[in-house]
């Protein structure tokens, strides 16, 4: 550890302690647990600054905050999954004793197969066994056993997604592309004379509705042409392909704009926390 690193570390520790003490004094009038509250706010502020310190250059404080975040996130998801799903859904269906032990209402009964009722207390051992097999991945000898539950997960997910995506992302989306180019309710087409004499440029008007439909039609058509490689992109075909590229670029631009907005929002959120909750600069 270099001399500079030691000095920086001492400075950070000193700053942390001073911040904690000052914050505790400020919170003394409004909170009985001011020391703990002040500690939590200071830790959050310290971790926020540690993450942003990467913008200057990579450093041990950033690495510490990053590793802490990954570890805490993994642990949090595991604990939540255990208490809400294993304790909340699985154990109360396996046995009344376990349900009582974990202070959950017993969920007896079974799955009605028509000819007989498959009791939950037996049926739910299947996910217990499969879930246990997943952990066999940690064993060098029994690692292959984890492939069975994994295969079930992949197969089930693929089967479910195939049906849902086919319906919602393919059939319905294709149907949504067939838009009326000359209007329908609430703006039925009544000829060019009527269209120009009642020209309405508002967002809910006929002009914007028709323009949207034409953009969808041309955008989809030209976008598809761009991805059609069985014919050389020359002449009219090439021009349509060129329009397709423009449509794609505009779409990517819109996505980029939204992404910038999202990232700025995160910065606003953290700065608001620092200025309001930590430093008390704003109300």
């Amino acid at each position, binding site marked *: 550890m270099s001399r500079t690193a030691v000095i920086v570390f001492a400075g950070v520790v000193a700053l942390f302690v001073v911040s904690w003490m000052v914050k505790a004094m400020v919170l003394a009038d409004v909170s009985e647990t001011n020391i703990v509250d002040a500690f939590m706010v200071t830790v959050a502020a310290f971790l926020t600054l540690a993450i942003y310190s990467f913008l200057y250059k990579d450093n041990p404080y950033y690495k510490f905050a990053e590793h802490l975040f990954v570890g805490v996130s993994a642990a949090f998801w595991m604990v939540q999954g255990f208490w809400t799903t294993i304790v909340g859904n699985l154990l109360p269906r396996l046995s009344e004793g376990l349900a009582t032990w974990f202070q959950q209402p017993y969920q007896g009964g079974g799955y009605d197969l028509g000819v007989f009722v498959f009791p939950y207390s037996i049926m739910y051992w299947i996910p217990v066994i499969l879930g246990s097999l997943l952990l066999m991945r940690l064993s060098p000898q029994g690692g292959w056993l984890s492939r069975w539950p994994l295969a079930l997960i992949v197969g089930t997910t693929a089967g479910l997604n195939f049906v849902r995506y086919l319906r919602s992302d393919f059939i319905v989306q294709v149907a949504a592309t067939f838009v009326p180019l000359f209007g329908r309710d609430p703006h039925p087409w009544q000829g060019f004379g009527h269209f120009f004499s009642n020209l309405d440029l508002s967002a809910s008007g006929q002009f914007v509705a028709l323009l949207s439909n034409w953009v969808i039609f041309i955008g989809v058509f030209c976008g598809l042409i761009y991805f059609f490689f069985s014919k050389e992109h020359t002449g009219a075909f090439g021009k349509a392909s060129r329009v397709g590229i423009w449509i794609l670029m505009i779409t990517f631009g819109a996505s980029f704009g939204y992404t*910038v907005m999202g990232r700025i929002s995160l910065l606003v*959120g953290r700065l608001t926390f620092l200025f309001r909750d930590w430093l008390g600069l704003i109300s």
Partner: protein
Amino acid sequence: MTNIGVILTLIVIFGGLLWLLVRSISGREVDRRIIFLFIFVSVAAPIIFQITFKERATPVVEALFANIDGLPAGSKVLISFDFDPAMAPEVQPMANAMSRHCLEKGHKIVFMSLWATGQSLMTTTLSRVILPEFPEKVNGVDYVNVGYKAGNEGVLNVIVSDFKKMFPTDVNGVPLDSTQLFRDIRSCADLDLIIALGGGRPGPKEWVLFVGDPADVPVGVGVAAVVAPQLYPYFPQQIVGILGGVKGAAEYEQLLIATHDRFVDMETPGIDMMGPQTLAHVVIMAFIVIGNIAFFRSRSKGGSK
């Protein structure tokens, strides 16, 4: 104070941009940390001086607002918190505003989450918005928090046909059968509207695919800005309205204030965030322009092509 702050901010930012332009044109490099500093100033100054703008709702936001507003009192609305603290600055304001709107209109709300992190954010909405602002609303009668379940699309696939099979109890262990709100709810098909809040997977898209379309229940979404463009193709056939990013939240808050006197003095984090957003976007656009000017100038001088 605000006016002085605005003037100072504009002088610092645009003076700095002018300096950057001169520096770029003269062919000198600009350190990336100076760019970060500009973004910091353009975001921090509007927060400190509380610079805000009035928002005007777009049709996608108006559509969702009108949908909630038009439902008869007593309608059952499910709000799913499928996001984490990283998305909270954008999505939590939407959650708060729509929860307020639903309760004000007399709707019954079912809160749930497909993300483990969503459960604590749900608690934030309950403790900071619903309990203090709607003390007359009763847990189990006007709203129920059923919490989080692991399983992603698997959870949706079950609740689309049997809600209580996946959520036998609420988050406090109270059986859903004993709650008044769930007397008439067997599956998601018994809901009048689903509001999916999120920005990852599982999220709003999965709600459309696994619940909205199969059960024929209207789905409205409030999403982090990053995924908003991907959801526009679903509007209006499969999604009744979209709140995209903090802009969507701000527009919704503006509509709520404009139409409900009760909410005139409510907290408006969405609107408050649009000041920093606007200034930061102006600065980023200025960077793009400066970068292009420097590029074309260097090219005309025979520099890099």
